[in-house]
C-alpha cells in the first residue's frame, strides 16, 4: 500500500509536466485547428536556453526564466509568421508536416549549438533533496514542479474564461469566419495562442530539464504528451490536465509492476499503447466534442 501511494505521488509529479505540454498542444489546436508537433521541440529549446542563462552566463533565476520565456515567445512569433500564416488555406497535411519539420529543426539547432550532451541544472534552479512526510519521501523538485504546473494551468484557464482575448480565442476555435465577422482579428489571436503555447512549453522544458536533465531527447517526452492530449480530448483544457496526470501515474505504475515482465526500457512504450487503447475505446477523448456533420 505504501509504495502504491508513493508511485501515485511520483506519477502526479511527472504527470504535471505532461499535462503542461498537453495544454500547450490544446492551446494551438483550439485556435488554429492544427496539431502542432513543434511544441515537443520547444521543450528542448526551453531547457537549453534555461541552461545557457543559468549555468553558462550564471544569471539569477528570475532573470534567466524571463530570458527563456522571451526567447520562446520570439521563436513562436517567427514560426507563426513565417511558416503558419502562408499555410492557412492549405489542406490539413501541409501545416502538420511543417510543424514536424520545425521539431526536427529545433533538434538540429540543439545538436549544433550545445552538442547534445546531457546537462544538469544542479542546485541553482530548484532545491535538491526531498521531504519525508510519514513514510513518503517526496523529492523537492517533483513537488515544486507539480505546484508550478498547476499554477500555470490555473492562470491559463482563468485567462481563457475571464479576459476578452481569451473569449476571442474560444470564438476563433468555433469558426474563423464568424470570428472575423465579429471584428476579432483572427491573425492576432493566432499569434497569442502560439506565444502562450510556446511559453508554456518553455516552462515545461525547464521543469523537465530539471528532472531528467537537459538533453536532445526531451522531445520524446513531448510525444508522450500526445497520448494525454488525445485522452483528454483535443479541445478541452481540463481534459488535457487530468489526462496528463493520469498518463504520469500509468507510466509510473507500468514501470513498477510491468517493468518486471517486459524487458527493456518501457517508458516510451506504455503511453503509446495507452494511446492506441484510447483510440479504440473513446476516439474523441473524455471531454472532446463529438462532431456532427451538417449535410
Amino acid at each position, binding site marked *: 500500500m505504501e509504495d502504491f501511494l508513493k508511485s501515485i505521488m511520483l506519477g502526479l509529479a511527472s504527470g504535471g509536466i505532461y499535462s503542461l505540454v498537453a495544454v500547450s498542444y490544446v492551446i494551438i489546436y483550439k485556435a488554429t485547428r492544427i*496539431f502542432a508537433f513543434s511544441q515537443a521541440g520547444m521543450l528542448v529549446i526551453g531547457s537549453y536556453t534555461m541552461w545557457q542563462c543559468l549555468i553558462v552566463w550564471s544569471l539569477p533565476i528570475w532573470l534567466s526564466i524571463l530570458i527563456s520565456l522571451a526567447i520562446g515567445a520570439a521563436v513562436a512569433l517567427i514560426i507563426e509568421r*513565417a*511558416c503558419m500564416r*502562408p*499555410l492557412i488555406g*492549405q489542406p*490539413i*497535411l*501541409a501545416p*502538420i*508536416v*511543417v510543424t*514536424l*519539420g*520545425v*521539431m*526536427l*529543426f529545433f*533538434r*538540429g*539547432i540543439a*545538436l*549544433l549549438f550545445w*552538442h*547534445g550532451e546531457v546537462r544538469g541544472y544542479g542546485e541553482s534552479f530548484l532545491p535538491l533533496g526531498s521531504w519525508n512526510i510519514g513514510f513518503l519521501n517526496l523529492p523537492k523538485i517533483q513537488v515544486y514542479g507539480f505546484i508550478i504546473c498547476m499554477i500555470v494551468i490555473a492562470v491559463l484557464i482563468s485567462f481563457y474564461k475571464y479576459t476578452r482575448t481569451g473569449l476571442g480565442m474560444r470564438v476563433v476555435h468555433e469558426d474563423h469566419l464568424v470570428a472575423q465577422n465579429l471584428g476579432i482579428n483572427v491573425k492576432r489571436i493566432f499569434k497569442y495562442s502560439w506565444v502562450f503555447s510556446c511559453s508554456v512549453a518553455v516552462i515545461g522544458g525547464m521543469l523537465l530539464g530539471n528532472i531528467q536533465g537537459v538533453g536532445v531527447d526531451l522531445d520524446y517526452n513531448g*510525444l508522450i504528451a*500526445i497520448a494525454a492530449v*488525445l485522452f483528454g480530448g483535443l479541445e478541452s483544457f481540463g481534459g488535457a490536465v487530468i489526462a496528463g496526470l493520469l498518463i504520469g501515474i500509468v507510466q509510473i505504475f507500468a514501470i513498477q509492476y510491468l517493468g518486471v515482465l*517486459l*524487458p*527493456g526500457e*518501457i517508458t*516510451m*512504450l506504455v503511453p*503509446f*499503447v495507452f*494511446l*492506441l487503447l484510447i*483510440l*479504440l475505446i473513446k*476516439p*474523441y477523448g473524455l471531454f472532446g466534442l463529438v*462532431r456532427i*456533420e451538417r*449535410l
Partner: protein
Amino acid sequence: MTINVDRPCGTFDRNYYQAMEIFRTHLRKFLMIAFIAVMYALAFIVDDYIISILIVFCAFSVGMTGLQIITGYAGQISLGHAAFMGVGMYTMAIFQEHLGFNFWMALPLAGLAPMIIGMLFGIPAVRIKGLYLAFASLAAHFVIVYTINNWRSVTNGTDGMYLHRPGKLLGIDFMVDKYYYILVLTVTIIMIYFAKNLIRTKLGRSFVAVRDNDIAAEVMGINIAATKVLAFGIGCFYAGIAGAIGGGYYEYVNVEWFTLTDSIWYLGFLVVGGLGSIFGGIAGAVVWKTLDELSTLVTPITEALLGGMAFYASAAFSLVIYSLIVIVMLVLEPRGINHRWQIIKRSYRLHPFPY
C-alpha cells in the same frame, strides 16, 4: 473550347481502351521504353558507388510510392512509414535466418508482414475523420521499435541481423552489385506499374473519393473505414518490399536505420516531391537521397571548420538543412515539384495558347 491537352491534333479514339491509355501516342510509348532501357543500361556503365546510390533510389522510390498511396491518394497521414520499412527488413532477415527461406520466398512475406501489422494499427484510427491515423502510426513506430529492441531471441536486439541476397539464378550471380541492381530495378518497375494501375482502377478512385469528400464517398457505397485501412495496408506492403530490396544490398539490418526522424523525412519529402502523383513520390525519394549523399560529402568540410565535434556537426547539419528545405518548400510550393512540372508540361503543350 477546352483543348484536350494530352492529345495532339489528329489522334482520335476508336474504342474505350484507346481512350484510357496513359501513353497514347507512339512518341510517348517510345520515350517511356527508352527511359527504362537507359536505366537498365546504367548497370553496366557506372561504377559501384553510383550503383549503390541507384539501388537506394529504387528502394526508397518504392517506399515513397507506398506512402503516396496512403497520404497522396487516400489522404491519411502515416508517421510510422520508416518503421514498417524496418519491419520488412527484419521479416526478411528472420525468415532467411531462422526458417531458412530463400530470397524469392521471403520477399513477398517481407511485404505481407508489415501490411498485416499496419492494418492492425490502422483499424482503431479510421473510424473517425481527422488525423488520428497520424497518432496511431506514431504509436506503431514506437511499439515496433520496442519489440525489435527487446525480442532478443528472434531479432537479437540492438546488434542487428544479417540478410542474404538470392544465390545464383539462371547463371546470374546476384552477389555482384550490378546484377542485384537489375533485380532491384525490375522489382521497382513492377511495383510502380502496380501502383499506377491501382490508381486508375476502382480502388484508386475510392481512395481519392475518401480523400476529397467522404460524404460523397459514403453516398457512393464506398466503405470509408475499410478503404482507409486497405490504403494503409497497401502502403505498408510497399514499405516492406522497399525495406527487403534495400536491406538486401547491405545484407545487414539494424534498428538505428529507421528512426522517427526518417519517418518524418519520408512525409516531408513526399510533400516536397508532390502529393497525388506517382511521379511526385519518386521525385521526393530522389531529392531526399541525393541530399543524403551530398551531406556525406559535406562532413569532411565541417570537420575542418568546427574541429572535433564533426560527429555531431554532420547529424545536426542534415537535420537543420533538410527541415529548412521541407519548410521552405512547403511554404512556397505546397503542391510540390510535381505540380510545378505539370504546369511546365501543360504550358509547353498548350503553346502558344494560355488555356
